[in-house]
């Protein structure tokens, strides 16, 4: 089972510098949280989707479609509970709260897509190097990338363990919630233990390869900010500035919305 998100192809987005891709992700986050009105989120959303299209990273979004669907449904309902407005529609839903919940849902989905754009187009090492060049200490960068690396390892051990327990007669699909939670114990304990054992070897192997031997360290991966990076960077600043300006003028809020 391959659960790595990085897609090893050559696209315009892949060719961008790691730093640019990280900044794109951070900028999109800032731009998204500024607005409450879905209409203002829409253009930023289109930009993120364009990036996704150019990176040919739609497959990764498709892979998590079930998660996204669940998030969409629960988020659209939930935000209505936490907000109210003046124009009542039905039940606990007002026009303003509906718009607000749509905006929040878009925010969550777009954040995930933007994050996926980053992971789909950036190698783990490039991500670390990008973070370090942006000022993060190497060890912190490495820790982040290691935890990303752990995800596929753990999910493949969950897969094996659930097969082992199923063949002993464990049926995870039946029973009420309480019973089901109890059934997960035979999965969780072996997952924890094998992960801990694996991490131990990982730590030893890491030390044995001289991790942290020198204050300074070189990077084989070359990374240069090129003209296209500066262009993307400039474009991002422009979008950000516009967003902040509009926001400061009071655009993008929903009139008559009360948040709890």
């Amino acid at each position: 089972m391959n659960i790595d998100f990085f897609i090893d192809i050559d696209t315009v987005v892949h060719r961008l510098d790691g730093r640019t891709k990280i900044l794109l992700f951070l900028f999109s986050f800032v731009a998204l949280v500024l607005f409450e009105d879905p209409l203002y989120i829409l253009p930023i959303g289109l930009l993120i989707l364009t990036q996704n299209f150019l990176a040919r990273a739609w497959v990764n979004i498709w892979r998590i479609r079930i998660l996204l669907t669940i998030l969409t449904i629960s988020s659209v309902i939930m935000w209505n509970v936490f907000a109210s407005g003046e124009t009542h529609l039905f039940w606990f839903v007002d026009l303003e709260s509906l718009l607000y919940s749509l905006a929040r849902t878009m925010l969550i989905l777009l954040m995930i897509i933007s994050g996926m754009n980053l992971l789909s187009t950036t190698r783990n090492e490039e991500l670390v190097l990008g973070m370090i060049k942006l000022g993060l200490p190497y060890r912190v960068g490495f820790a982040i990338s290691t935890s990303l690396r752990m995800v596929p390892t753990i999910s493949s051990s969950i897969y094996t363990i659930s097969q082992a327990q199923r063949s002993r007669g464990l049926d995870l699909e039946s029973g009420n919630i309480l019973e089901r939670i109890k059934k997960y114990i035979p999965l969780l304990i072996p997952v924890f233990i094998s992960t801990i054992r694996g991490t131990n070897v990982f730590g030893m192997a890491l030390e044995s390869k001289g991790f942290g031997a020198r204050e300074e360290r070189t990077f084989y991966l070359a990374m240069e900010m090129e003209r296209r990076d500066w262009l993307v960077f400039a474009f991002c600043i422009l979008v950000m500035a516009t967003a902040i300006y509009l926001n400061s003028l009071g655009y993008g809020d929903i009139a008559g919305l009360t948040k709890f």
Partner: protein
Amino acid sequence: MTDQAIEIKDFKFRYRGTKELALDGISLNVSKGEFLVLMGASEAGKSTLCASMNGLIPHYQRGKIKGNVSILGMDTRENKVADMSEYIGMVFQDFEAQLFSTNVELEIAFGPENFAVEREEIGRRIEKNLAYVGLEEFRNRPPSTLSGGQKQKLAIASVLAMQPQVLVMDEPTTDLDPISKQGVFDIVNQLRQRDDITLLVVEHETEETLNADRIALIRDGKIVRVGPVRDILRDVDFLEEMGIMPLGIPRLFNQMNYPVLPLTPKEGVEEFSKTGWKISGEKYAQLLANEAGADEKKGNLLIQCKDLEHTYPNGVKALKGIDLDIYQGEIVAIVGQNGSGKTTLAKHLNALLTPTEGEVFVNGLHTGEQGVYEIGKKVGYVFQNPDHQIFSELVYDEIAFGLRLRDVPEEEIDQRVKEALEAVGLTGFEQEDPFSLTKSGRQRVAVASVLAVKPDVLILDEPTTGLDYIEQRSMMEMVKELNRQGSTIIFVTHHMWVVAEYAKKVFVIKDGKLLLSGSTREVFSKEDELIESFLRPPHFVQFSNLLGKTFLTPDEMISAIEKD
């Protein structure tokens, strides 16, 4: 400067929280350029000794330490692991956990990067070491997509890129098929030619040690003997006593009380021609006739695969049309290269996986319609790694788990747990914590937990991997006994001697297809076809093939030898 690469003086180590010494007064010198193999039973202290060499002990794994370990004159107490790593490289058994990068080149770059080696120089080292281990064409591949043997070669290349003067390998080939194993040892032998590198390798398989200079035998944390390879390998009885598998060829000559003990198949054939012994054609024919007779008495058809194909959700086609029949009471081995599809095949036999094309029947029942819950009652499956299933605090509860899930009454559970424990030789362990047992103990708990459900068929995935010779033997003797009592046994394995001595029938899988099948003797007589699927029979069987007859064990051959 000293000419010793490794100097260990009266070294003792006790892990924190344990009472017994893991290493108890080790003294060992390895000179520069030497190739030393370290052998011993499980828990003898091999891995602890390896970890002591580059300072993982005492810096990473804490405990009480006495005596000295010095590598190229550097004391491990005074130097951090990361600093030592420039001089002493380490390759671990677990090839998944020691690779961290997203492509092959970057994996090799990782070590030199830590020592701030210039980019151009790293580039040169990548080229050199990729070529050295023969992975040039994989340079842009993610390590996770490589086969087990390739991963281990990559691990070696990534350590060599740091240009260490001492290389320690802790059971580098345990999880590999025979030819991948040989591939790794070919690299080791290549390294041996170089006098700028000292090698210390922990190895279970005696056949692979023939090219080393010396063997050190370790037991209960003490070095029992160190000597030239050929001397030690000829001491058949002593090896057996140490829990190390003696080579079949010297064992045969030893049992025949012949004064000269050849080691390799070639030497064996040469020596055999001098003995004046003859293999009785009559007795060999008798052996074959007995086998044919047993085959005719076979039981009912139990498992049937019809044009079985399996494609994983990611599009990888793991099985490409397999037809096979397994009969009641058989003991069958499924063998093949890492990634050939043998585990995928085994998982179809208890309905953990269902065919994407074709059909599998167990006892006439369609696996796709019945599912693993139903089929699982008839076909038990023991996974390779017992840690993937053990979760209870008591051995008793672990074994009762499957029974409780199937609502067996408590009194009966009591009885069945007792029987299962007896079958695996763990009577009296009911109230023990399974996690405190050794690997082989945990393996037995896993087998018992499956046995308790009383399946007709038992599938074992790599039942002997990670065990030492004595543990492997007792595991397989237990399996044999279960078979004698009526269980049908199917096991997946890389260990060819286990196949030779315990399987009656063999299925060879290659690239998702059934390449060969037949009695073990038939299959092992076809060496060329086996090599094609990355397998080769044990030295002893190769030796007998060279003599024109296929014998599976020395005892079998002895019974057919006629002295003049």
